[in-house]
């Protein structure tokens, strides 16, 4: 097809469950492109030389390469190219912030809309799941043992890369199920859990051992792993961890949740199927979620699905500053979520029996830019008002989890308690590497995966140098 013809093709729309219906169920919102639509979308790629989109991808997927194969309807080749750089494309195709990574630098975005790289990544990965059992061969055993702490995207990616190279990999996971935020945080309606399970199964077939119910720092220390347990290297990927509360009055009231707790109850513990699943959650008729990131968006959309008549997102800055993925914001609005910008809670008010009855808020205005470059919200004196509600979900961030680091004093941390690493991803302890949220603070799935991949290469070199 000639460039002029390609230029004429409009961006394809992602088929979705109708907003009315999906706001009341937990099934996936996006249904995936039809075959013809996917090929048309792939044809929109102009196959730029030195394509900028590739530079925007933290794991450097050859985007024009896989799109060219897809445009040719050669799905096996498209999958091969995609998987060469990204081992979890069915996941990243669904959760990456494409609008700030690959799609943002697509030349087609200059005049019109960028190529829908995320939709196509998902399309190829879902095709591969059905037709292409691409578990790659593991290299012959090297006799080296590597322990991975945490089965989130960073840990799983590192595990896969190391197993391919023939190392014996054991992943230790604190929860009863592997996946990290992919299973306890991101809801089913955005990332179906069977997709995560499928990827984990693939790793198992590659020879990766996954041992759940092991908390490193408690069950074993890093010292035990490198000592008695006989591992030659360790990759720490235990995620960000502890939820932050605002420390305002009323946060102990029944009905106040951290987003982590609210989402874990609903996702990992499947409280949305209560009582078939025995873990409860306080559903709430009027739910206020505090925050503006992906976590807040997931919580507020979950509240709608649990039956909230009113689900309100309260964000202290304005719409432009919201860090959530653009698609989530759009979906949330369609599902009837209400947004209140430039306001923050100052107190949670309760009934005499200790249940939430309202949040008292204060209005904000934007002042000078802060360290993050965004304009700092400043409270407007005397502007307090109440929002009646029965559930409040706090999604204002996390801080580093000290469980592992406090039992490993030799591990150098930065002043926020996150682990310091060198360019190789190695920590202050030789042979111990780290990556993902425990290094970066709360970041993204793809950055965590990128860390896992880089660390795997570095661990491989480290082990080779020592054998």
């Amino acid at each position: 097809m000639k460039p002029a013809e390609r230029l004429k093709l409009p961006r394809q729309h992602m088929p979705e469950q109708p907003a009315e219906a999906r706001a009341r169920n937990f099934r996936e919102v996006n249904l995936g492109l039809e075959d013809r639509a996917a090929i048309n979308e792939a044809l929109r790629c102009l196959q730029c030389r030195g394509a900028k989109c590739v530079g925007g991808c933290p794991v450097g997927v050859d985007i024009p390469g896989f799109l060219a194969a897809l445009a040719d309807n050669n799905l096996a080749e498209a999958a091969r190219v995609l998987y060469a750089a990204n081992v979890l494309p069915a996941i990243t195709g669904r959760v990456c912030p494409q609008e700030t990574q690959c799609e943002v630098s697509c030349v087609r975005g200059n005049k019109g809309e960028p190529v829908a790289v995320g939709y196509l990544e998902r399309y190829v990965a879902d095709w591969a799941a059905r037709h292409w059992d691409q578990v790659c061969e593991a290299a012959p055993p090297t006799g080296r043992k590597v322990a991975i702490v945490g089965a989130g995207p960073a840990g799983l990616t590192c595990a896969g890369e190391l197993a391919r190279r023939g190392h014996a990999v054991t992943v230790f996971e604190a929860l009863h199920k592997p996946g990290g935020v992919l299973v306890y945080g991101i809801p089913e309606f955005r990332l179906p859990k069977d997709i995560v399970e499928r990827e984990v199964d693939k790793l198992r077939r590659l020879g990766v051992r996954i041992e759940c119910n092991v908390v490193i720092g408690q069950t074993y220390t890093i010292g035990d792993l490198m000592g008695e347990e006989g591992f030659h290297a360790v990759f720490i990927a235990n995620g960000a961890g502890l939820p932050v509360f605002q420390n305002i009055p009323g946060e102990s009231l029944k009905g106040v949740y951290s987003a982590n707790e609210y989402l874990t109850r609903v996702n990992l513990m499947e409280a949305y199927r209560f009582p078939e699943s025995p873990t409860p959650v306080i559903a709430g008729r009027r739910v206020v979620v505090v925050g503006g990131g992906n976590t807040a968006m997931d919580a507020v959309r979950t509240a709608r699905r649990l039956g909230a008549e009113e689900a309100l997102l309260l964000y202290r800055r304005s719409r432009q500053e919201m860090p959530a993925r653009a698609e989530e914001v759009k979906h949330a609005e369609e599902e009837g979520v209400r947004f209140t910008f430039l306001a923050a809670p100052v107190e949670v008010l309760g009934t005499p029996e200790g249940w939430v009855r309202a949040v008292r808020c204060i209005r904000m205005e934007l002042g000078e830019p802060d360290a993050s470059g965004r304009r700092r919200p400043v409270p407007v004196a005397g502007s307090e008002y109440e929002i009646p509600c029965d559930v409040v979900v706090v999604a204002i961030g996390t801080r580093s989890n000290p469980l592992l680091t406090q039992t490993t004093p030799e591990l150098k941390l930065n002043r926020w308690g996150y682990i310091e690493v060198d360019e190789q991803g190695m920590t202050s302890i030789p042979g111990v590497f780290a990556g993902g949220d425990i290094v970066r603070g709360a970041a993204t799935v793809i950055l965590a995966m990128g860390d896992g991949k880089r660390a795997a290469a570095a661990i491989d070199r480290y082990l080779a140098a020592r054998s």
Partner: protein
Amino acid sequence: MSAYPIRHARWLAPGVRCLIVEAPRVARRHRPGHFVIVRPVEGSERIPLTVAHADADAGTIMLVVQAVGATTRQLCDLEAGGEVRDVVGPLGRPTELERFGHVVLVGGGVGTAVIHPQAAALKKLGNKVSAVIGGRSRPYVILEEELGRICDAVYPCTDDGSHGFHGFVTARLARLIDEDPDPVRAVITAGPVPMMKAVAEVTRPAGIHTIASLNPIMVDGTGMCGGCRVQVGGKTLFACVDGPEFDAHRIDFDDLAGRLTAYRSQEQAALEHLRQAVGEGSCRLAGAVARATGDALGA
């Protein structure tokens, strides 16, 4: 994924089951004060339970479970030869034990299981150890014999006077503090929230160092969710990583008691659902549970 085999199971009291479970990794690392999170069967809720005893050589841990709701009941239904789906731990910080002099352990109901591992450790450190343990009536006083073998003195108490001291553990503790020739230097307590609160009030005037083992509702047990948060000395702390033991004189017990009632109505529904699933007829525990639910730990 492997489950955790049950070596022995027996009833300690009506509705209170003692399980010896194979969990070698937990057993090896266990220190008094640690707990585990378990899921009895696939799909269960995650609930925290204290490790009442650990045998590193045998690779086993002892759990003492009171059937108060759906999940504890599922656990109590398990038999030797069966298995627990998930056991993770040891979790929490171990108790800070030292040579205090005379230490009194105060246990109420299954709280007695919580203070059990401390007894031996305190004894080993050269303390004089007394245990004041309570129950509604004679059959509900647990581990008396076991504690008797370790402690210098054990004072059973029953609400109805059917065994030992007639009255609450707090009254017996107060008497011990007043009358024992060896001044009481430290108190460690575990049991229903109102009991722990009352213990703290008994020891407060004399400024006796008092530690309470808290039992908030938990989910992950690794500090990730904040569901277990408690107010201690005006600060919000996470019981699973900062505790579960805290200075009893600084704990806001009313806050904890309030939070423990958050799921009352759902708990009833879950129990009802489980009853229907297993069939009321086959459910030998139904009666015990119904009774226990009324005065659960913390209720």
